[in-house]
């Protein structure tokens, strides 16, 4: 078998987990993916339909990898509708990864929606370290919450606090996860780093809070992707290519990205305001 990660590998879906009415996790055999670092992504081919960038999720099975998809438009729905035994293509892992510094002991994860995926993978990898982890998670409403069971399971063995915000208050705090973050940072002054992934406006607020509080932050930025290998520039933000220079940027890098939280390029490449 070829080991060129850029050649599409067709894999068979072995397991499906329904995370919420609109979110599924697919598990399949893939050694390259099983070795990926937290924050990396696949380009996932849904034959005859689409190819989408998707963060690599955690799988407990050896030599296996997983992806988590939220049903939305054409491509994501086509994928969502796949089931056990169906075949999809993957290439990658692509992109850089979250960094973990062993001197950091107070760590916040801030995520929403499928932005949780890379954070879950990161948590999975570092949870056994002697740190205090706070996982802040947001959703529109209770039924759209997912991964909470997974995190809760881990909280039993590790020092993990799970804080949840729903916009409609149907679960946890009412409001945005950044509201929780703000309050949390008022009380907890010694946070080392925030890892975040999710809606760009959320990450932008988190960045502002981090900078104000002198905390490190790493955010995974999402942009429209075609190639995933730094050739097409569809994913560019300022002079960076999200697919190869990112997707993860720290506060020093992000502060230079004037387009962050302001505008993105649409499919044709036109710079468009959020």
């Amino acid at each position, binding site marked *: 078998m070829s080991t060129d990660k850029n050649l*599409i590998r*067709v894999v068979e879906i072995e397991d499906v987990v329904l995370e919420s009415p609109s979110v599924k996790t697919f598990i399949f055999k893939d050694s390259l993916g099983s070795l990926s670092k937290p924050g990396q992504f696949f380009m996932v081919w849904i034959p005859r339909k689409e190819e989408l960038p998707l963060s690599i999720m955690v799988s407990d099975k050896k030599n296996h990898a997983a992806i988590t998809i939220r049903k939305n438009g054409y*491509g994501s729905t086509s994928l969502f509708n796949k089931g056990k035994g169906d075949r999809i*293509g993957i290439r990658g892992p692509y992109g850089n990864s979250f960094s973990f510094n062993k001197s950091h002991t107070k760590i916040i994860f801030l995520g929403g929606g499928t932005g949780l995926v890379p954070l879950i993978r990161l948590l999975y990898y570092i949870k056994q370290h002697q740190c205090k982890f706070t996982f802040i998670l947001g959703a529109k409403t209770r039924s759209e919450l997912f991964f909470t069971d997974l995190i809760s399971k881990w909280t039993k063995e590790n020092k993990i606090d799970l804080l949840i915000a729903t916009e409609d208050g149907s679960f946890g705090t009412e409001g945005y996860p950044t509201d929780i973050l703000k309050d949390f940072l008022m009380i907890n002054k010694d946070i080392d780093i925030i890892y975040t992934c999710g809606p760009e406006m959320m990450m932008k607020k988190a960045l502002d809070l981090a900078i104000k509080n002198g905390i490190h932050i790493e955010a995974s930025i999402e942009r429209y992707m075609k190639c995933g290998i*730094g050739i097409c*520039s569809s994913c*560019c933000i300022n002079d960076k290519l999200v697919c190869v220079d990112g997707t993860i940027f720290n506060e020093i890098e992000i502060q230079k990205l004037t387009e962050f939280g302001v505008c993105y390029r649409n499919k*044709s*490449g036109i710079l468009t305001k959020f």
Partner: protein
Amino acid sequence: MDYDIPIKIAGLNLRNPVIVASGILGLSQSIFNRLYNLGAGAIVSKSISLLPRDGYRNPTIVSVDNMSYINAVGLANPGTESFSKEISKNNGPLIISLVGSDESEFSVIANKFKNLNILGFELNLSCPHVEKMGMEIGDDVNLVYDIIKSIKRDTTKPLFVKVGLGKSDIIEVAKIAESAGADGITAINTLRAMKIDIETRCPVLENKIGGLSGRAIKPLGVRCVYELSKSLRIPIIGCGGIMTYEDVIEYMMAGASAIQIGSLIGLKGIYSIGKIIRGLHSYLEAADISEVKEIIGIVHR
């Protein structure tokens, strides 16, 4: 490192002959600046059409073995209006690639760009996977002639014409381009190609057919440059499968005055630009060649 291997082509002075090909990181002024800072002698933009184009659905770019790709991006681009704003403050060595379907369209596009601070234009006659654009025009020699004539009427900036291996004779098309006033020829573009995934029994690209680039096409590109440089007086920019500085030399010996790199950037990243220029530099020094033009077309002598 100052990236200096000066060349002159079609009246332009470039600091070195390594140009970033059209469609490769070709949409953003910030990226153009970065490419320049990393050494590029010049940069060709994505092919710009009159109106914005979303291009095809993904997959649009697929790797095939041996350092090659098949792409059917479908000429996704922001269109003339938006792109002219994008580059309004440009002061780097930028060449705008143009694509369109008739004389009048090209005229509007060229007029929009001609007063900007750019080096010149490249006319994309050879995109192999978009109907009524690119290749299909390139195959109609009368249309080619008229389009070039009209662009040359609109602007005094140099115009390169990019040709490919399609349904017509590349040398004939290039000669027509020369006779219509083109200042240089870029050869070659990608070639119509296809990849089928046998497990899922379907073509991989959403558009089914795309253009082959990368290592696989180098011997074809070198041959075209060799043959073109025999038949033309205007300079040639070689393109296709260049991965190393040795490849640059090979193209130049075949007759290219400058070269473009594309797939290399996907394979080896953005820093490969500087690497190839440094390699070229060392080679010229070791071979005691003071001006790169000494080797241009040397195999013809």
